[in-house]
Structure formats: structure tokens, C-alpha cells
């Protein structure tokens, strides 16, 4: 054993390696990404790791690996679980041979997601047991426990951290590689009665799954992850807390300040540890539930009260004692517990500060996406248009002054939206923007659909040769894998031509005149057209120099600031100013300056 300072996600990765995981696959998504990256960095000989093209493929990989007796970890964020839902729902009915741990990171807030969906509900829906860690240390323990649990009970297992657990750091005692469990896959054995899903098999297995989960509910009452912490004797009404996830640690902190009232910790919310909860509730009059996202513990306790005829009042989100959405904080939990105990906290308030800066996230200085959006905006000025955005850094093209994202729904959705609008309004110029990683993950069926069904729209692939938003993961278009192999790139151009597109043009978006021209020609052409704006992410390429404003030439018109919104540009004493710490020398501002007052960098048109 040795001590290491680990992010929750790193702890999960090392836990899986310690359990002898054989295959790890997934698709990047905040806050889950670092799990797979950490496995790749610390991979012992013989462990296979890949970034799969999307979560559905990753989940299907997990099934294949498990059928072969391998221990497998598949990683994604909560949105990705929707993509992987089809194989997972079925895999639960088929069951597993090698242990399958499905790491799904939820994102209360949401901080970096489209929804606040709760994987604990998905667990109940899919009937897959769910481990819900409250800290990096517990995540490390659960990651190891989950593989054996999966094999013992023949089911995939969810490991479901939330953002603060995934991205919280702690000094942990972890195993050395010599202490890792060794697990050798037995190989695939033909057994159609086991691996081929048919209604008769589903009927039989459904019954077994329900019985198993009832048994597990009892078994999990003994799990160290579910437990009661007794409190000091207090007069009636007797009060207690129930908590799960990071909120459990907030509850512990609140108890230190406010007194040690009884606390039920739910670390495995599905199958819910029913008998443990009955023992906890039996001696209490009121219980306040502390959890994020949906009131899962709260509803389970209400159900248990009904089932066992208990009179305990269950308070939480449904009674207005806790907020319905957003993440919990230490203060929110301490305030709620104090009020619950009848002694609301007095808060010292500071005088209000001056108006604070508003800082929505923005495209980086020099980001090629800014140039791509600007080119399309210029090309389509005055036309009736719709610009369908997608998920990635380029969602930030929505902000002023670009305002080039009219819709954003989920990965790949822009293509479907653009073609539907085109069918209803043929006179509107429809554009769908998609990143290079998203192109491979979820845009291909949309392109085929449009070609086959005779839609007319322009697909704009924003190819910065990486998966930028989640921290620069490789994908099929990058020519390398997470295991470090150099491989043939899958060509976006060839894929599109193969589907049948005839207008496929690749343009450097930082050459503004050529970019605008390409967009205008694409828009004028019939059918499904594609422009690939190819320029590397600035976080992965060296600056080509720094641009600077010649104050003698700058006429103070602010056009550069007003039109492109680059964070390196500001205005002082009547002139534009470029922050050399941020400028990458992309020259987009120089190309639009009417006074030719900006020089430096490369890429001049």
C-alpha cells in the first residue's frame, strides 16, 4: 500500500485495476472522463483500454468482454447512459459472466450537462444494482467490491459518483500494482440458450431478476456502504437524517456543528436496503432526507413507511424542506438541518459587493470555432436561416456577439433538427454544426437519413482534431488511440462521399475570405452539402505568434471587439488592445480590421 493524492475518478480507476479489470472502454463526458484516462496511464500489461466511438458501442463491448469471462469497466456521463440504454437494458436480462461495472457520473447543478437526470432512477428502471459513493475513499472501495458483486449475482453494477465525488481530491491509501488481483478471462463459450435474447428467455429471467433484487435488498442491509449512525438521546419529536452521495459528508459536517442526531447512510440506493431503513425509522418521528437530483431516498422511505405501517414523517424535496433542483452545498445542508432541529442558523451577511463581473464560459482566444461561426454568419447575412448547434466547446458559439447557435439538444441532434425544418420550410437555409468527435459518435445516421429522404441542408463539421471540451481525447479521426497506437485516420471527407454527398469541401476557417466563399457555394448547391472547417484546437498547437494593435493606425471603431468577441481583445483609451497572454496569433481580428491596424501572427488571407 502507498498513499496518493487522488481525484475521485482516479481512485475509481485504480480500484478497478486493483480488482483485476481486463477491459475498459467508454466515451468522454464531464465529470466521468478521468476514470478511463487514469486506467490508460496506469495500465498493467494485458489490460485493454479504448475510447469507443460512443457509449452504445462501449456498452456492447462490455457485453462481449463479459461473455468471454473478462472483468470490464465501461465509463460515461449520465447523458451517455441514454445512448447506451439499449444494450444495457438487454444485458441486465441476459446477465453477465465476467464482472461488469458501469461507471456513470451524474452532474447535479447541472455544471456541465444538459439534464439533471438521476442514475439511481435508471438503476431501478433497468433493475441494475447501484453503488453511490460519498467520497473518493469510498469510491475506491466500491470500485473493487463492485466486480465481485457483479459476478456473484450475475448482473451489471452501476457505480454512480456525482461531480463533487468525481472531482474531489483526497489523500488515500491505495494498493501497489503487485497487490492487484489477477483475473484471467476464460474465453467465449458457445451457449445460445444463455447469450441469445428471446421473449421466452426474457420472461424467465425477468422473474429471476425480481427475486434476486429482493434478496439483494436484504443482503445489502449488511453492506458497510449502508449503515446507521446512532445519535444522542433527544426528547420527542425524535428526529433523524437520511443521506447519500456527497450530501452524506455534508450531513456529517452539519452533525459536528449541530449535534449528533441519528443518520442513515444509503450507499447502495438500489436495491434499497429496506430492513435497515425499517430499523432506522421505527424509533423516529421525523426524518429529513439529504440527497441531490431526484428524491430517491425520500420516496423509498415513504414507501417503506406505507408498507410497514410506520408513522414517521419523511421530509425533503417533496415537502419543500430541500430544493428540487441544483446541487447541495455545505451551507444549504447545515441550514436545512438547523431549521429541521428548530434552531435556524443566523448568518452574518457582508455589505453587498460592487456589481460583480459576469463570466459565462467563452470560446478561447484564437479558437478556430470562432472563425468558423463568423464565416458562416458573414456568408449568410440577411438570409433566412437556422443554425443548429450541438454538444461540445462549440456550443459556446451561442454567446454574444456570434449568436450562431439557434438550437442545441443532445449529441447529433442538430442534423435531425436541420432536416426537419428544411422539409417544413424549404426556403430557409438550414445548417447543422457538429464537432469531429461528435461527427463519429452520433452524426452518421443523421447524414444517411438526410441523403435518403431528400433533405437539403449544410453540414458544417468543426474539425479541431480532438475531443476538446472534455480535455482532448483521441477519436477515429485523430489517427491515434488512447493506448498510444498510431493508426489510419478515418477520413470525414471519405465517409461523407461514401454516403453519397457530392459537395464536400475542406477549408481552413482562419482564412476568412475562402471560408465565406465556401459557405456561400455550399448554401447555393442542392441536397446535403458538407463543409469541413479544419484547424487544430489552440490548446494543442503552438501559437503562431502574437498579434498587436498599432495604436497609430487604430481608429477606435471597436469592430474587432463588437464582431468576434475574442477574450484577448479589450478597449482602453480609445483603442483596441490585445492581451499577449491570451493571443495565439490567429489573425481573425486582423482580417476584419477596416484600418489594417493589427499585425503579427500568421494565416493572413
Amino acid at each position, binding site marked *: 500500500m502507498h*498513499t496518493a*493524492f487522488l481525484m475521485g475518478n482516479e481512485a475509481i480507476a485504480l480500484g478497478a485495476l486493483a480488482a483485476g479489470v481486463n477491459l475498459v472502454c467508454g466515451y468522454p463526458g*464531464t*465529470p466521468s472522463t478521468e476514470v478511463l484516462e487514469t486506467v490508460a496511464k496506469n495500465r498493467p500489461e494485458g489490460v485493454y483500454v479504448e475510447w469507443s466511438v460512443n457509449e452504445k458501442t462501449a456498452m456492447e463491448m462490455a457485453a462481449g468482454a463479459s461473455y468471454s469471462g473478462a472483468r470490464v469497466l465501461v465509463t460515461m456521463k449520465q447523458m451517455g447512459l441514454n445512448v447506451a440504454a439499449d444494450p444495457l437494458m438487454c444485458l441486465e436480462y441476459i446477465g453477465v459472466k465476467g464482472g461488469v461495472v458501469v461507471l456513470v457520473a451524474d452532474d447535479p447543478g447541472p*455544471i*456541465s450537462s444538459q439534464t439533471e437526470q438521476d442514475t439511481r432512477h435508471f438503476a431501478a428502471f433497468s433493475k441494475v444494482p447501484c453503488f453511490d459513493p460519498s*467520497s473518493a475513499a469510498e469510491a475506491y472501495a466500491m470500485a473493487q467490491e463492485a466486480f465481485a458483486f457483479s459476478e456473484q449475482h450475475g448482473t451489471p453494477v452501476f457505480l454512480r459518483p456525482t461531480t*463533487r465525488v468525481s*472531482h*474531489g*481530491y*483526497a*489523500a488515500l491509501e491505495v494498493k501497489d500494482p503487485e497487490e492487484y488481483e489477477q483475473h484471467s478471462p476464460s474465453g467465449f463459450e458457445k451457449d445460445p440458450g444463455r447469450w441469445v435474447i428471446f421473449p421466452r428467455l426474457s420472461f424467465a429471467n425477468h422473474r429471476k431478476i425480481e427475486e434476486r433484487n429482493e434478496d439483494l435488498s436484504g443482503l445489502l442491509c449488511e453492506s458497510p456502504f449502508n449503515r446507521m449512525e446512532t445519535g444522542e438521546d433527544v426528547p420527542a419529536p425524535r428526529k433523524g437524517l437520511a443521506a447519500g452521495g*456527497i450530501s452524506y*459528508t*455534508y450531513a*456529517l*459536517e452539519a452533525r*459536528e456543528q449541530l449535534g449528533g442526531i441519528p443518520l442513515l447512510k444509503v450507499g447502495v440506493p438500489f436495491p434499497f436496503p429496506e430492513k435497515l431503513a425499517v430499523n432506522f425509522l421505527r424509533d423516529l418521528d421525523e426524518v429529513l432526507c439529504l440527497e441531490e437530483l431526484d428524491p430517491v431516498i425520500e420516496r423509498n422511505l415513504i414507501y417503506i413507511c406505507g408498507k410497514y405501517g410506520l408513522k414517521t414523517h419523511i421530509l425533503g424535496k417533496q415537502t419543500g424542506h430541500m430544493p428540487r433542483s441544483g446541487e447541495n*452545498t*455545505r*451551507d444549504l445542508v*447545515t441550514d436545512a438541518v438547523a431549521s429541521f432541529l428548530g434552531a435556524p442558523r443566523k*448568518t*452574518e*451577511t*457582508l*455589505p453587498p*459587493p*460592487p456589481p*460583480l*463581473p*459576469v*463570466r*459565462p*464560459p*467563452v*470560446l*478561447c482566444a484564437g479558437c478556430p470555432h470562432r472563425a468558423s461561426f463568423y464565416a458562416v454568419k458573414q456568408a449568410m447575412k440577411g438570409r433566412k436561416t437556422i443554425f443548429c448547434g450541438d454538444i461540445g*466547446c462549440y456550443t*459556446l458559439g451561442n*454567446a*454574444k*456577439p456570434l449568436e450562431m447557435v439557434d438550437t442545441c439538444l443532445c449529441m447529433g441532434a442538430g442534423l435531425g433538427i436541420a432536416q426537419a425544418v428544411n422539409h417544413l420550410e424549404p426556403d430557409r437555409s438550414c445548417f447543422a454544426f457538429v464537432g469531429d468527435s461528435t461527427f463519429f459518435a452520433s452524426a452518421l445516421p443523421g447524414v444517411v437519413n438526410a441523403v435518403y429522404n431528400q433533405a437539403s441542408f449544410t453540414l458544417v463539421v468543426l474539425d479541431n482534431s480532438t475531443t476538446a*471540451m472534455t480535455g482532448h481525447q483521441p477519436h477515429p479521426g485523430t489517427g491515434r488511440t488512447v493506448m498510444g497506437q498510431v493508426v489510419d485516420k478515418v477520413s470525414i471527407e471519405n465517409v461523407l462521399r461514401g454516403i453519397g454527398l457530392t459537395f464536400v469541401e475542406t477549408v481552413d476557417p482562419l482564412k476568412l475570405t475562402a471560408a465565406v466563399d465556401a459557405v456561400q457555394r455550399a448554401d447555393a448547391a442542392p441536397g446535403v452539402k458538407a463543409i469541413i472547417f479544419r484547424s487544430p484546437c489552440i490548446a494543442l498547437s503552438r501559437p503562431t505568434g502574437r498579434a498587436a494593435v498599432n495604436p497609430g493606425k487604430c481608429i477606435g471603431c*471597436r469592430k474587432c*471587439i*463588437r464582431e468576434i*468577441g*475574442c*477574450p484577448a*481583445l*479589450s*478597449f482602453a483609451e480609445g483603442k483596441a488592445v490585445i*492581451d*499577449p*497572454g*491570451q493571443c495565439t496569433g490567429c489573425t481573425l481580428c486582423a482580417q476584419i480590421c477596416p484600418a489594417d491596424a493589427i499585425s503579427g501572427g500568421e494565416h493572413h488571407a
Partner: protein
Amino acid sequence: MRKNIILCGVGGQGTVLASRLISAAAMARNIPVLSAETIGMAQRGGSVFSHLRMGEGIHSPMIARGEADLLLGFEPGETARMLPFLRPGGQVIVSSRPVTPVMAALSGEAYRAEPMLDYLKAQVPSLLVVDGERAMREVGSPRVLNLILLGAALQSGALGLTEADLLEAMQRLIPGKFYELNLRALRWAGENK
């Protein structure tokens, strides 16, 4: 020793590395550490923070209002935003250099550091202001504000760590070719009292 430290600023200013260095230094002295960072979309120029807690008996990596012993501010407005987390009598070290939000540049509204610094001074009599602009110029890089502020925190004694603790952590976490530059940044505050 039990200490709660908040580092705050704008995405891209290097708060995460500063937080990692403090944690690594504390760990090397066998002090339990928990921390939490902003990761994800906000790193693209949004408001970011690190919470860092050292000592025994801590359950959560997050710091509550009125609980921080030290607020290490990389930007005046962001520091004012996080001030409610400071405990009475806690220390604030802030860089005076404002980072203009794109929104302010666009609207033409001036964003100035002075009202933020005046507000901080009024609430925190012991406020320590670091001339971040000058320091980065003298050290010779626009990307070393994190080590400059860490050096100022070290000088103030509010970190509860020694220079030797931090140097050892820097040797482990900072690539060799950037080490000298970061060392100059760390020592700037001591040489410019």
C-alpha cells in the same frame, strides 16, 4: 494544524496547479488533505475555484461560508465574489490585476479593479494586495500568477507551510524546463516586500 484555503480566479489562470502544489506539500508532511476543483466548461474563461482542506477530522472537501482561513484571489472581482467564505479574522491575498470579462468589453462598460479592491479593504483590514501585472512582467511570463500568489501566501505565513515544502512539491509536479521560471515567480513576493 487545520486549515481551509480557497483559491479563486478565472479559468486559465492556473488555480488548479497552485492547489495541487499546496496539497502535495501538505501530504508530504503527513497532513490529511481534501480538495475540490472546478473542472469542465467553466474552465473556458468562467469563474473558477479550488477548495482545499487540511487537517484531521474533515469529512467534506467543500468549505462552508465563514470557514476559510485564507482566500487566495487571482482576480479582484472573483475574490469579492468568494469573500462570504472567509472566516472572521481570516487572511485575503489578492492580485490587483483585473481580467476583463468578454461581456464587459462588448458592452463597452468599463470593468475596473479599484472598486473591488476598495470593497475588499473595507471588509478585510489585513488585505494583502499583490501587483500581479508588475510581478508577471518582472518574472517574464504572463502565465505565472499562480506561483507569484503562492509565494505571497508563503511570505504571509497563512499557508502554514515552508518554502522547502513547496519546492519539494514543485520538483515533483512542474516539468523541468518550467521549474526555474516558476521558482522565480515563487520568490518574487519575498524579494519585493
